[in-house]
């Protein structure tokens, strides 16, 4: 407990030093405030526009969460199909790589053109970008089962259903969490990228990406900083939620779960 308090204290000290350095730079170089506002001005902007900031945050959070959850459901399903045979895997796996390598920035405009701007299109973009790590990691977990465990199951005349649900799937849970951790971060990035192109169905009610675009065009640099801050907090919140779930489900039996704790 004491060690954790020290960890938090250290992080706060670094943060304070960072803010101080930021302020010093402003004083020494006389940077105009539309280029780099002071930390204090950013804080004021957060307070002054708190409702609209929260609104933008909520929209982006909803889109990223929707995309992430969809990618987990679809990704696990695809992985289960992949785990059935090497043949299926060989045939279809290259396409998941494609999913990972296609630049989301390039296909976002296409999706918006097909679906129209708005939350469904942005959610779809978040879904596409977070799907590949879920598929890849879960498939890995499903197929990398100790051969002797499979033999053990066979010795008890286990059905292929039993092997899948009592052996392969539990074995893949730690891998699924690795995939979810990666996907949680990029789902937020995907949603914001989508919003940069799409904005919102209703003017003035877009998520963080839309608001960032708007604030920068209006030279509202303080608010722009506040939005970037909000986006970072959102990414962190997602990551911590996944890490908590990972700890909750794995800490009793899995080695990696103990390493999650910060030293």
């Amino acid at each position, binding site marked *: 407990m004491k060690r954790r308090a020290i960890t938090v204290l250290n992080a706060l000290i670094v943060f304070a030093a960072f803010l101080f350095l930021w302020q010093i730079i402003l004083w020494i170089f006389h940077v105009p405030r539309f280029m780099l506002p002071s930390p204090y001005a950013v804080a004021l902007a957060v307070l002054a526009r708190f409702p609209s900031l929260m609104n933008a945050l909520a929209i982006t959070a909803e889109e990223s969460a929707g995309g992430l959850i969809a990618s987990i459901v679809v990704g696990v399903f695809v992985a289960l199909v992949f785990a059935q045979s090497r043949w299926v895997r060989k045939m279809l796996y290259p396409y998941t790589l494609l999913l990972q390598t296609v630049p989301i920035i390039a296909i976002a405009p296409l999706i918006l053109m097909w679906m129209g701007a708005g939350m469904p299109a942005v959610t779809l973009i978040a879904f596409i970008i977070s799907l590949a790590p879920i598929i890849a990691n879960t498939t890995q977990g499903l197929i990398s089962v100790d051969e002797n*465990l499979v033999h*053990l199951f*066979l010795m*008890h005349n*286990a059905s292929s259903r039993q092997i899948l649900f009592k052996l392969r799937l539990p074995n893949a849970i730690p891998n699924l969490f690795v995939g979810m951790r990666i996907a949680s971060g990029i789902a937020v990035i995907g949603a914001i990228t989508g919003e940069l192109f799409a904005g919102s169905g209703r003017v003035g009610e877009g998520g963080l990406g839309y608001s960032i675009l708007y604030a920068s065009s209006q030279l509202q640099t303080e608010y722009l900083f506040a939005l970037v801050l909000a986006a970072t907090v959102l990414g962190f919140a997602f990551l911590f939620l996944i890490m908590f779930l990972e700890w909750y489900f794995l800490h009793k039996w899995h*080695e990696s779960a103990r390493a999650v704790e910060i030293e």
Partner: protein
Amino acid sequence: MSANGDVPEIEIVGVTKRYGEARAVLDSIDVVIEKQEFVSIIGPSGCGKSTVLKLIAGLSSPSSGTIRVDGMTPLNARETVSFVFQDATLLPWRTVKENIGLGMELERAPKDRREKEIAMLLELVGLKPVSDSYPRELSGGMKMRVSIARALATHPRVMLLDEPFAALDEMTRDRLNEEILRLRTEQKWTAVFVTHSVPEAVFLSDRILVLAPNPGRVHAEFRVDLPMPRTPAVRRSKEFDTLASHVAHTLRETIPQ
């Protein structure tokens, strides 16, 4: 099932096993193992001793020759056979209790029977205090106990053990050796035990088969006439030493120059 008294427990007749075009791993092996016999298989790496177990278990099939377990094909005899692997091969996400119950669960035994059996086995192998622990929390010796308890849970007539104690320290190994003999005396199963250790083979067995590699074949056979029950005192007897050094000498002959 087939309580046919005169059928040997395991019958291996002219069995050859090769993978693809490569040299045979086993070359026309003939082994007969009687009911309730404890047979150890010892030999240098690559002599195919683990392959013999896999063939008896039906996890691999011979290229030629026949194998009968209790008069049946290995696949049909699986219900009467349990396998103990070299590493304990426990499911890490299951507690000790749940691991012991795995085989019964897969064979769809009713829950109350499973629980009764688990409670009895926990007592038998001395795992009661850790019944709700996960494998991660156990020592190597404890894990192996769980593995043995899991194998015994389905009341096998044949136990196939593939170097089960190879990774354990000598003290733990000796303790588990004594325990295996106690369990076997109580429950009267047939055992085929693969090992690298000569003293272990001598201490446990009724009979020792020494296999030679390239291609795998039975090089020599020893009958162990040490008194039963095999107490720790047996290990220190002169007869034990004489036989062990004899087996060790024969084993050395099989190692290719």
